[in-house]
C-alpha cells in the first residue's frame, strides 16, 4: 500500500498534518507502538524540514508486510553540505523559524536516530531527497 502527501513549503499552519495522517494510517496495521513512534518522529521532522526550507514536497509512504519505505522529496534550495547538516546543532533556519522553536539543528539527527536506514541526497538549487526504511520485525 502506497500513500502520498503533498507538503506546502512555508505553511506552518498545516505543518505536521502529513505525518499525523501517516501515523493514523499505520495505526490500522499491526505495528508495534515503538516503531509507530519512531516513524512518527522521523516523518514529522522530515515534514518540518520541507516546510521550513523548501518550496514544496511530496512524502510517499510504502507500507509492505515486513518493511516501511518512506521518500520525502522536495523542490527547494537543497543542502550545500550534507555532512554539516547532519551535525547536531547546525541549522540554516531563519530567525522567524527559530522563534517558533524550530531550527535547533536537531531535525536530521532525530531522523537518523528514528529510522533503520537513512539516505539523504541533495542538489543545491534543485532540491533534496530523503529515503528512510523501517524493518517490521515479527513479534516486536
Amino acid at each position, binding site marked *: 500500500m502506497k500513500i502520498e502527501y503533498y507538503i506546502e513549503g512555508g505553511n506552518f499552519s498545516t505543518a505536521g498534518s502529513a505525518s499525523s495522517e501517516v501515523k493514523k494510517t499505520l495505526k490500522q496495521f499491526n505495528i508495534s507502538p515503538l516503531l509507530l513512534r519512531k516513524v512518527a518522529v522521523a516523518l514529522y521532522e522530515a515534514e518540518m524540514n520541507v516546510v521550513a526550507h523548501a518550496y514544496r514536497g511530496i512524502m510517499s509512504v510504502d507500507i509492505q508486510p515486513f518493511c516501511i519505505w518512506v521518500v520525502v522529496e522536495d523542490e527547494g534550495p537543497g543542502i550545500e553540505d550534507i555532512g554539516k547538516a547532519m551535525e547536531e546543532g547546525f541549522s540554516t533556519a531563519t530567525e522567524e523559524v527559530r522563534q*517558533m*522553536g524550530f531550527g535547533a539543528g536537531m531535525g536530521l539527527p*532525530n531522523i537518523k536516530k528514528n529510522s533503520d536506514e537513512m539516505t539523504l541526497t541533495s542538489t543545491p538549487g534543485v532540491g533534496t531527497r530523503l529515503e528512510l526504511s523501517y524493518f517490521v520485525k515479527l513479534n516486536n
Partner: protein
Amino acid sequence: MGTSLNKLKEELRYECLSGKEWLGTTADGAYVSDLLSDVMGKAQPGMLWITSQVHRNIVAVASLKELSAIIVINERKVDQEVLEQADSEGVVILASGKPAFETAGELYRYLIR
C-alpha cells in the same frame, strides 16, 4: 504509575484550556523545552510538556509524541484555533500561570513525592 491529570490540575491549580474529556488520563514525568525537535527527540510518551510555545505546531508534537498534556507557562495566550485543533486531536493543554522555573519546581515536587 502516573498521576491523573484531573488530580494534578486541581492540586496545582492549572487551568484546562483544551481536551477536557481527556483529563482522566495519567501523566508520567515531565519535559521542559521550547525547542520542538528537542521534545520530539527526548520526551517520552505519557510525559507532560512544559513550554512557552503556544503556536499550533505544539499540538502536532504532543499528539505525534503521545504526550499526556502541554503545560503553557506564564500568562501565555493560546489562540482559539489552536485550542480547537487540540480539542479535535485529543490534546490536553493546561495553563500554569507561572514561569517555567516555578511550574517545573512545583510539578517536580508533586510528581516525585
